[in-house]
């Protein structure tokens, strides 16, 4: 199929949109949504293997890209934008090494398709420091020796910043619970918790 068309019967995209708008008109869908469908807002069709346009911000820098649907946010960051601070650990959402912030919320970038992040704002470990001045959480990880090999550290730090922002860093127990999505094979957990507690208690704006 050369047409970017979900309709197997071979209708054109325009026909399909007309029909779907008609279906919509017959139901109790709110008017605003109906209007959006009419204007073809948010309607995107991509043939397999075709790269599709993607606009997003990474560390406050806007990008206009083209990606295959199967590219994860993690692979986009590492392979296309060369932001290799975000690590690929398990690639299955079990280790947390790939943690980044999407619109301020921590997520596993290995389980998010890049194309699902249209218009969103991504923050990676590279986006935390201000020039040569480390982010308070980065400084605290160094002070408290919150790592050994360092592979999980970018994910730990991104998760730690979010953990405080979410208001879930009020005790060692709560930090352990809300940091459980980040595995450290070296076992630096006690030091990681000390680092998070110090940043939380200092009350520095993150």
């Amino acid at each position, binding site marked *: 199929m050369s047409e970017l068309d*979900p*309709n*197997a019967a071979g209708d054109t995209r325009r026909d399909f949109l007309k*029909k*779907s708008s008609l*279906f*919509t008109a017959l*139901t109790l*869908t*709110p008017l605003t*949504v*109906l209007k*959006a*469908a009419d204007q073809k*807002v*948010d*309607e*995107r*069709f*991509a*043939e*397999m*293997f075709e790269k*599709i346009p993607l606009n997003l911000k990474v560390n406050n820098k806007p990008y206009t890209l083209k990606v*295959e*649907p*199967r590219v*994860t946010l993690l692979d986009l960051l590492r392979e296309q934008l060369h932001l290799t601070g975000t690590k690929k650990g398990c*690639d*299955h*959402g079990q280790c*947390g090494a790939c*943690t980044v912030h999407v619109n301020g*919320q*921590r*997520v*596993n970038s290995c*389980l*998010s*398709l890049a*194309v*699902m992040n*249209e218009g969103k704002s991504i923050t990676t470990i590279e986006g935390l420091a201000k020039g040569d001045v480390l982010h308070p959480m980065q400084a605290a990880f160094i002070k408290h020796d919150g790592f050994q090999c360092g592979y999980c550290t970018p994910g730990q730090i991104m*998760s730690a910043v*979010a*953990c405080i922002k*979410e208001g*879930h860093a009020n005790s060692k127990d709560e930090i*352990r*619970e*809300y*940091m*459980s*999505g*980040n595995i450290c094979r070296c076992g630096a957990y006690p030091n990681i918790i000390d680092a998070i507690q110090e940043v939380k208690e200092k009350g520095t704006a993150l």
Partner: protein
Amino acid sequence: MINFQYVRTSVVKTALGLIGKDPKASFIAGGTNLIDLMKRGVTAPDKLIDINYLPLKKIEEIDHVLHVGALASNSELAENMIVKDKFPLLMLALQAGASAQLRNMATVGGNMMQRTRCAYFYDTTMPCNKRAPGSGCGAIGGYNRMHAIFGASEACIAVHPSDMCVALVALDAKVVIAHTKGERKINFIDFHRLAGNTPEKDNNLQKGELIVRLEIPLNNLNKNFHYLKVRDRSSYAFALVSVAAALDIQNNIIHTARLAMGGVAHKPWRLIAAENFLKGKNPTVANFEEAAKIAMNGAKGFGENDFKLKMAPNSIIEALTVAKAKS
């Protein structure tokens, strides 16, 4: 990952039209389970219909019923003030599931639709009737420590992995499902299925349908409640056994009891007979023990999971005891 077509829409009707046309298409919301399965080759949809832009995120109370949009995230629901105040059992169950990152991504509808974590289902070199109907069950006679003790069949002994769903079945939630001709509403307890001869079907959602919201009626179960999850590590692990318990106690008499278990069956396992026994009784340990005994009627181990036959009743007693001690 095998490539696929990607389609995005902000209109429910359009999404339903798209899924109805393509038997190998799949909806994608949070993606935390689906993308994992696609990477492992367990499933390979030829088209993903991104439903994240559908207007299904609202959480609101309407006429003594909590309406939860299917696209509300697990963390949004857990942090919601109405949920914290009126459905704390649901809050505890949500907090017990996955990690903070995954809860930010995972949606309510997606949580219901997640597949079992049975190792034989995930390993494409092994037989599995759920993944490849007719290929056999590797878990029967195999590594089955995590598997079912209730309602299993000769075709499948997998368990449903959700915590949220265990609370929802206990809270008498209803599931509102949209299709091209309108909507239908079913009880949460009827949403998921037992494996029977068709373990490939996890639930009763038909092809071409979409979960649009949950409706949870207000209740008096927000004082004496507990969600107990027993697992191999204290956070970020699937349940060996979990128990959702809620009691409405008035003048030392149990007016209403709600009990459900996770990690023990192909669906969230409501313990109706045990609930009926507790109704009208005093909330004593002796009665909790009798209820646990009734709940275990028909339980059967498969070797490695025989320990659940003891762990499950003990967990029921513990959950009820903690629930009673609250307030």
